[in-house]
């Protein structure tokens, strides 16, 4: 039932001159919600009208409240002709629908017009009165909180992490409707903006319903995307992780949720729910009805339609072997691609998934069906193998059982989170990914309105089976994306296979007994690297060693993941951004031929991207990648691949071997010389990088580690031929007998190019670091200055000599130059780190490549940068907003048993001591011994922990205090606090960052999700400064509108900000251009740490867990 929406239009300012004669404007405002419209009086002859209207009241269903945006249109009154629109403001009122967020939206909003951009501002006040609604069969999901942040938000505690939620909504794109021919582009763009706003609201509501059904109260890691499929329509889809969150430090916040279903949920004890994972098919639910009612005619009706994966493909509670439910071999041209081998993977996949035995899925099958990545990144196999870690045996069995039972009932045990509460992540397998090429016109089939759902279900199923094959029962850091060119669409999904701690996945009943065990067995800081799987039965070739940290479990030689670096991981040195870039030409083709061509190319691309990543990782002297994101973009005549990740040196993993270059024609003297020259260069680079990133792992003798594990040596070579390296290094130590180098064979010019391109990557200038994860490994002393930015570049390729090499070089230069530019521009911030560097590539036209980068530069204090040893503990404390108690226990324990004292042997480098006995391009081994002895640090840890414990206690009180203080009544309240005092300025500072935190500050409140979509067009491109001028102005306007909305909600920052889409099209001949931008993030209130100190109180507290320790650490 209903709610009452109240809107008041206060004033306008800086309006444009609409009447040339008087140089003034006669402005009035239309306020529209749903089908109801109100108007203000006309305020004559002013550019700063004061309407001061009455409260316009809309009585509406809460379903509408969720779906519909509030539309405010400012017009110029004209007695004789039609009134001219000045511009519009769309306000998403969702943040007002849950009690903990904003209570009022009030502030100056930029008035936006698709042609003219921002034209003045309007001051609006919006309130919502919601009435209690206990109707179980309602369609709305008011009260479910949404977060873009991909970790548990700072001031909440995760009670249960339920799992994956997804939904998509399809509609026709107004741009492609027949009516478009008679209306102006402006009208159709406005229609588009309105429609997408509506669709996102609807999508969010539907996701919310699913969450409620799962008994959750929030969605974390909410990622919503648009697919502009052109003529075939507009798809808005979203994924997220349903959670039950508990607000820290303000228990009262839960109770007054008069409207919110979360209250209702509270009343039902969790353990009464027989099946916590019913999201796939609740027995009841309006959801179903609704879906059915929509089903028949949908995707083409003007009305939005939704479809549910559950209904289309998958059995509800899928038991392990999939039984009769098989992969639909995708109807002809759509090939799912994930395989290195050029067979159609769908066949292989069905093969593997039909295999009833899950434990013994071994190499032959797997190697074909699993996407390339898993071959290299070892999986932690949670099931099947009995011979896991000896000590962990019984526990693991238990763990496995519980987790399995928790997860197996789920259709998709996926989590969009990238950072987790301590103890959640038990083991990490490798990256799993799946891609599929589809032809878009298939959507026209009215009998199969759920095509899109089916497509995604298929991909997800593939991901799931990949993970299963890796012995993992869950996928974390999961994300989905598309790339569309004409009628061809590549769907991609990727994530990290993992074994999770079931404690968070289920209701509280098991918690007690399990927790104990957890503490005994699990939590070493290297735990997530361990691969508790049967090494005799490895699914793919890999080289195992005993963990360099605890020496009890086995670890792979390299680890690739899509998640953030776990806060408790021990890292040596600093991290760095690693990118692989690749272009492949493709013949222009139509429809099915095109799709086939693309799917044939994909495996090669994936392979090469991966090889590049591996090479570059070696070159940096590192052994693990985090935040890996591989983007494959399709264009008319080429495919682009761009992989970004943050390389680190994990102390638990072995030292990586070097890179060995081998020539093919050893007789040629000059060639030899050239090769050795190259080899030297590479070795120098590695040495330099080690110094640059401060990678100096201490070495220990081999005996401690134990002998290397025998490994199955039936590796096949993949694409390149390999040769034995003849020049073995003399100083090769027996104990390093297994330390293999990575062999690059130069057998043709291509390979030569590759090696060259390896060396062309210039490290950032001194004082700069970069990473694409949230936290830069090895830097923890952030100062408060941040600068978020977006940079866009488009280059035109000369069409004459398009070869793969030329393309690669162009693309490489483009990215490198872009980075160089960033470093130059931000030089005043040195020392600083570019965090969350997010590259997006698109191919808007034949010969155009567009690269968009969004990142944040954060300054840090160089003087304190040396205390890296403290980092792990500090960080885990930082993030440990959930279980401080537990956390306090395990590091202590860890100190006592897992770190026998060892003297620090001087660090030594054995880079050149590399030989290869069976170099495999894709998987290399390095058994060099290193061991970080932490004995001497233990005591300091303990001290530190004690110290922290106190800080934490103090912190909790501060939180309560500031929450009260910061509760937004109007705008300006805390803006004053955050903004530097400036007598004249009325504009508060709003920070924006792609990270989930603000350095030096504490987030005290989440105000709701910001999800905005804008279109801007121009018919006077030259006059507006050309394409650069046009886009520059537009992006600045988008930032401004985001900031204004946040400020109106009472916030002073946006965290987890992301620009999900930036589609730019130009037609210079017609002097026209158009751009679509979609951004999202979480509006928050933060308080500077320094302000907090003032409020700090001495009173001890029992409420230890209630702190957001984040901000406490640097003090």
């Amino acid at each position, binding site marked *: 039932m209903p709610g009452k929406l109240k809107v008041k239009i206060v004033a306008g*300012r*800086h309006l444009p001159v609409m009447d040339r004669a008087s140089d003034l404007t006669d402005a009035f405002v239309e306020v529209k919600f749903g089908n109801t419209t109100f108007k203000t009086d006309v305020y004559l002859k002013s550019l700063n009208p004061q309407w001061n209207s009455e409260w316009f009241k809309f009585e509406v269903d809460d379903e509408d409240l969720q779906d519909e945006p509030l539309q405010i249109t400012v017009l110029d009154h004209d007695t004789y002709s039609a009134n001219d629109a000045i511009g519009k403001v769309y306000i998403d009122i969702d943040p007002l629908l849950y009690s903990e967020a904003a209570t009022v939206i009030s502030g*100056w909003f*930029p008035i936006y017009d698709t042609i003219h951009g*921002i034209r003045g*501002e309007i001051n609006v006040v919006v309130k919502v009165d919601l009435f209690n609604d206990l109707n179980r069969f309602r369609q709305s999901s008011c009260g479910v909180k949404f977060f873009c942040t991909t970790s548990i938000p700072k001031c909440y505690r995760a009670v249960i992490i339920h799992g994956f939620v997804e939904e998509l909504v399809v509609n026709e794109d107004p741009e492609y409707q027949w009516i478009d021919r008679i209306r102006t582009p402006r009208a159709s763009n406005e229609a588009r903006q309105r429609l997408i706003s509506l669709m996102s609201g609807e999508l969010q509501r539907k996701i919310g319903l699913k969450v409620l059904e799962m008994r959750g109260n929030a969605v974390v890691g909410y990622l919503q995307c648009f697919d502009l499929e052109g003529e075939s329509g507009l798809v808005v889809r979203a994924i997220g992780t349903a959670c039950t969150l508990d607000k820290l430090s303000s228990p009262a916040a839960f109770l007054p949720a008069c409207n919110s279903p979360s209250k209702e949920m509270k009343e039902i004890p969790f353990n009464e729910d027989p099946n916590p994972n019913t999201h796939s098919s609740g027995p009841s639910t309006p959801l179903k009805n609704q879906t059915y009612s929509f089903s028949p005619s949908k995707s083409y009706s003007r009305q939005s339609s939704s479809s549910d994966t559950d209904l289309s493909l998958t059995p509800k509670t899928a038991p392990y072997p999939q039984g009769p439910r098989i992969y639909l071999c995708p109807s002809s041209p759509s090939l799912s691609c994930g395989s290195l081998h050029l067979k159609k993977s769908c066949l292989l996949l069905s093969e593997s998934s039909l295999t009833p035995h899950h434990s013994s899925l071994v190499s032959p099958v797997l190697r074909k069906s699993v996407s390339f990545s898993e071959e290299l990144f070892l999986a932690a196999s949670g099931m099947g193998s009995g011979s896991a870690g000896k000590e962990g045996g019984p526990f693991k069995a238990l763990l496995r059982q519980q987790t399995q039972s928790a997860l197996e009932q789920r259709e998709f045990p996926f989590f969009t989170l990238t950072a987790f509460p301590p103890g959640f992540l038990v083991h990490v397998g490798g990256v799993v990914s799946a891609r599929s090429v589809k032809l878009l016109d298939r959507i026209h089939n009215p009998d199969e309105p759920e095509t899109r759902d089916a497509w995604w279900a298929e991909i997800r199923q593939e991901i799931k089976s990949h993970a299963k094959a890796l012995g993992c029962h869950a996928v974390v850091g999961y994300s989905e994306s598309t790339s569309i060119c004409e009628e061809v669409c590549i769907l991609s999904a990727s994530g990290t296979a993992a074994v999770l701690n079931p404690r968070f996945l289920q209701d509280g009943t098991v918690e007690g007994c399990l927790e104990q065990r957890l503490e005994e067995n699990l939590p070493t800081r290297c735990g997530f690297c361990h691969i508790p799987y049967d090494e005799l039965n490895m699914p793919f070739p890999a080289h195992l060693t005993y963990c360099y940290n605890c020496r009890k479990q086995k670890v792979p030689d390299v680890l690739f993941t899509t998640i953030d670096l776990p806060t408790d991981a021990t890292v040596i040195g600093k991290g760095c951004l690693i990118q692989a870039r690749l272009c492949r030409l493709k013949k222009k083709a139509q429809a099915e031929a095109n799709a086939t061509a693309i799917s044939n190319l994909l495996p090669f691309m994936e392979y090469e991207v991966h090889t590049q990543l591996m090479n570059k990782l070696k070159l940096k002297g590192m052994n693990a990648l985090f935040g890996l994101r591989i983007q494959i973009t399709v264009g008319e005549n080429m495919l682009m691949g761009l992989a970004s990740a943050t390389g680190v040196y994990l102390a638990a993993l072995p030292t990586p071997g070097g890179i060995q270059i081998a020539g093919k024609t050893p007789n040629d003297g000059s060639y030899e010389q050239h090769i050795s020259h190259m080899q030297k260069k590479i070795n120098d680079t590695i040495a330099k990088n080690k110094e640059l990133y401060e990678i100096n792992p201490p070495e220990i003798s081999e005996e401690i580690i134990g002998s290397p594990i025998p490994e199955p040596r039936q590796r096949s070579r993949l694409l390149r031929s390999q040769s034995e390296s003849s020049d073995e290094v003399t100083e090769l130590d027996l104990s390093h007998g297994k330390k293999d180098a990575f062999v690059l064979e130069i057998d043709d010019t291509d390979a030569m190019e590759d090696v060259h391109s390896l060396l062309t990557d210039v490290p950032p*200038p001194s004082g700069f670091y970069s990473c694409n994860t949230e936290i830069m490994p090895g830097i923890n002393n952030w100062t408060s200055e941040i*600068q*978020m*930015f*977006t*940079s*866009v*570049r*488009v*280059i*035109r*390729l*000369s069409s004459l000599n398009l070869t793969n090499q030329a393309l690669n070089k*162009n693309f490489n*230069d*483009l990215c490198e*130059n872009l980075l*160089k*530019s*960033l*470093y*130059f*521009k931000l*030089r005043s911030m040195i020392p600083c780190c570019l965090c969350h560097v997010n590259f997006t590539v698109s191919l808007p036209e034949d010969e*155009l490549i*567009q690269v968009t980068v969004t990142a944040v530069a954060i300054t840090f204090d160089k003087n304190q940068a040396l205390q890296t040893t403290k980092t792990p503990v500090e960080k885990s404390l930082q993030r440990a907003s959930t279980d401080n108690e537990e956390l306090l226990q395990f590091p202590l324990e860890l100190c006592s048993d897992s770190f026998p004292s060892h003297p620090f042997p001087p660090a030594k480098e054995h880079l050149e001591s590399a030989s290869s006995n069976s170099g495999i391009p894709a998987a290399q081994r390095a058994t060099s011994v290193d061991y970080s002895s932490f004995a001497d640090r233990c005591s300091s840890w303990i001290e530190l922990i004690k110290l922290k414990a106190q800080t934490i206690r103090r912190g909790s009180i501060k939180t309560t205090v500031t929450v009260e203080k910061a509760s937004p009544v109007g705008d300006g309240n805390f803006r004053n606090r955050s903004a*530097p005092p*400036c007598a*004249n*300025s*009325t*504009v508060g*500072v*709003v*920070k*924006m960052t792609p990270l989930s935190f603000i350095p030096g500050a504490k987030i005290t409140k989440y105000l709701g999700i910001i999800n905005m979509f804008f279109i801007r067009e121009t018919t006077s491109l030259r006059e507006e*400064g050309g*394409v*650069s*001028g046009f*886009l*520059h*102005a537009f*992006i*600045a*306007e988008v*930032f*401004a509108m985001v*900031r*204004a909305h946040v400020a109106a909600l009472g916030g002073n920052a946006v965290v987890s900000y992301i620009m999900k889409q930036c589609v*730019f099209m130009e037609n210079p001949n017609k002097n026209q251009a158009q751009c679509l931008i979609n951004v999202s993030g979480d509006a928050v209130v933060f308080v500077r740490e320094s302000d907090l100190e003032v409020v700090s109180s001495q009173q001890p507290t029992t409420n230890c867990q209630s702190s957001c320790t984040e901000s406490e650490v640097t003090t």
Partner: protein
Amino acid sequence: MTSELDIFVGNTTLIDEDVYRLWLDGYSVTDAVALRVRSGILEQTGATAAVLQSDTMDHYRTFHMLERLLHAPPKLLHQLIFQIPPSRQALLIERYYAFDEAFVREVLGKKLSKGTKKDLDDISTKTGITLKSCRRQFDNFKRVFKVVEEMRGSLVDNIQQHFLLSDRLARDYAAIVFFANNRFETGKKKLQYLSFGDFAFCAELMIQNWTLGAVDSQMDDMDMDLDKEFLQDLKELKVLVADKDLLDLHKSLVCTALRGKLGVFSEMEANFKNLSRGLVNVAAKLTHNKDVRDLFVDLVEKFVEPCRSDHWPLSDVRFFLNQYSVSVHSLDGFRHQALWDRYMGTLRGCLLRLYHD
């Protein structure tokens, strides 16, 4: 491979002061890049010329977008599009409204009209300041003039309020506006030795003492126009030189007081009547607009030059002028003491400032 589009947008707008200066100085992107290269920035940062080019373009684009707002500085403070820290906003405004001494000397006292704008080409050639920069400065003058033209109250305050300039700069603008409004001739060869500072000093004194606002700040008219009544009244001073007795008495009073104190006493004594006649006649002529315009020319011709040719030191000029003004109070037959003080007080200050090489 050509770059079609290349932009960088920060949540906080990046302002590079050096590039801003180059932009204000009217250099093209190419010239600015060349100048930056010459400054050695490439060596310092290890950047390439391409990076510099892209960076410069970006900044120029930003400045171009900001320029519209800089035309009305309060807008810059209230706009939402560019998030700029207040200190930076102040810097942007201050620099934008700063002007070149060489330029302002060329246009000071000229009508800020299209006609003058056409002469900017010549000014640019003459001063070596780029035409673009000349235009900006000229447009700034004109814009400020337009805004405060019809306003009541203190000129400086009005300028400060509407353009958010620093006190110093606001005073300079007040002088420029005042000169433009009264069209004082400053371009004659004789006046070339005077700096803008000299004129600005005089303008301030005149605004304080000779305008309507000086008498009554509540008046409709304000600081920009000279007090017409006052100028009319100045005719009355003529008696000081027209009445022979009065002139002689005046001379003897001054001579008595200064005897022995002045290095150039004999020259002063010889020239007294000429000087006095000059100063009083200047006052008497101010009823005509034409003569108002020539005020500075007259002052230099009638007073500064004769003294300078006799090599009066500045201290002697000061002694003389003080005594010259004060002695009038002892003239019993002279009834316009207040008028004389209003006139001479300002004039004395101006003359002292104008008296240099």
